[in-house]
């Protein structure tokens, strides 16, 4: 499967716009991203290990509901899937 990054997150993935990986579900996918890019982990995940709400996830063009990300292991993935992570962090 393919993971596409944009904006602020790019600096935490060495400015790779796309990453290819194999994952059976969203939980595995996020775990692999954290292992591959250790500095991404605290940015992507909150203190409880869940995906921060500041990130909008789109799976094959459809927005992934926060209820799905909170139960990421139940979100099954296949090799042809594309996950886009859109991050908009504003200043005060």
């Amino acid at each position, binding site marked *: 499967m393919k993971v596409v990054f944009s904006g602020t997150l790019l600096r935490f993935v060495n400015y790779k716009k796309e990453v290819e990986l194999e994952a059976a579900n969203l939980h595995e996918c996020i775990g692999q991203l954290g292992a591959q890019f250790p500095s991404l982990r605290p940015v992507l995940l909150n203190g*409880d290990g869940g995906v*921060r709400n*500041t990130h909008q996830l789109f799976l094959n063009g459809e927005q992934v509901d926060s209820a799905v990300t909170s139960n990421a292991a139940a979100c099954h993935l296949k090799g042809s899937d594309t996950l*886009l992570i859109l991050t*908009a*962090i504003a200043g005060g």
Partner: protein
Amino acid sequence: MKNANGDPLLGSTSSPDTVQQFVRDNLAAYFSKVINPGAAERDLRGVPLEAHAFRPVADLGLFGFLLPPELGGSGDRRSFGLLLEQVGYYCDELEFASLLSMYADVAAIIAAVKRTDLLEAYVIPMSRGARFGTFAYTEQSDALSFSCRAVKQGNRYVLRGEKCLQTGGHLADVFLTYVRDEHDDLKLFLLERTDPGMHIEPVATAGFRAAGLTRLELRGVEVGEERVLVRVDALSHAQRFLNDRRLFIACPMVGRMRSILGTCSEHLGSVIRYEAPLTQQQAVQAKLGRMFARCETARAVLHDALQRWGASARNHLFDPTSSAAKYTIVENALAVAQDAIYLTGWQGYTSALPYERMLRAFMSGIAGQTTQDVIELLLGNQVVAQTELLKHKKAVSI
């Protein structure tokens, strides 16, 4: 803030005209007689607005306006935005509306935690203008690199670091402060001005000088668990707060722009050049026409964005429409103030026609509630991402 029948004077169905009448009837004379005459002097000396300046808006219940109905508020951000627009029209000092919205918003944020102890100690006094709170978020870095730290010691936290800018910190009894914990997650702490280790000092600026800007240093501030308002992912909490406030910074500018256009046109009609009022010159008429177009553009985008708020049709973390509205209003406000200075010459620098002071106040919008440059970047990111998604959808449908 209720009529003879006990109904709220302002609410989610209030028209812009109703809100204007409310401000005209209840506050216009106060601004004209009490606030406006001292604005130039406060700007000259860099003196912020004092607490007693807000007494009339407190008595009208405006600090509690954003609270939910069960706490006596309206909870309606659309009508509050319209109200700020009108305050901006009648009040010469943009800082007044900015502080009003900040203090009202902080009370609502604390109320949303839904703890009885917080309601009694903070929310109720804040809704009456007896206490004030501000938002301590900004550091000398991006949000993902914040350096303020909270270290847990037993069941208490010790906080260290620097928050470099708060609006209205001069009056704040409470600072809602975002600090990174041992898991590199942000937590939201409620800190009191009197907590040992809190060091607050004014920040001197060239404009927006009555807003009481401060810098907060946390020198080993020690607080208990009860001061943690958001335990996990306070970064998202801050983004919601900023998203909700972004449009508020622009609301009073729309009213102020209209005021500038009116006073500028009136003044130019009284200036005789070449044996005729300046307003009879086509070049002057054209510039006034351009200012009018900018005022109407700003008003239209503001009312549209507020209407969308009322309909809850928005992204709660980064709403492109209201962010674009803030961006557009600030750019147009800067241009209108600048045009007014071009038209009035040296008189635009005086206390009688303080367009130069207003230009400096409008410049607070370049930085405030997300800089204009960052908004451009985030909006551009959204455009690119949406294009990618569309491309993907087309590929799937083929």
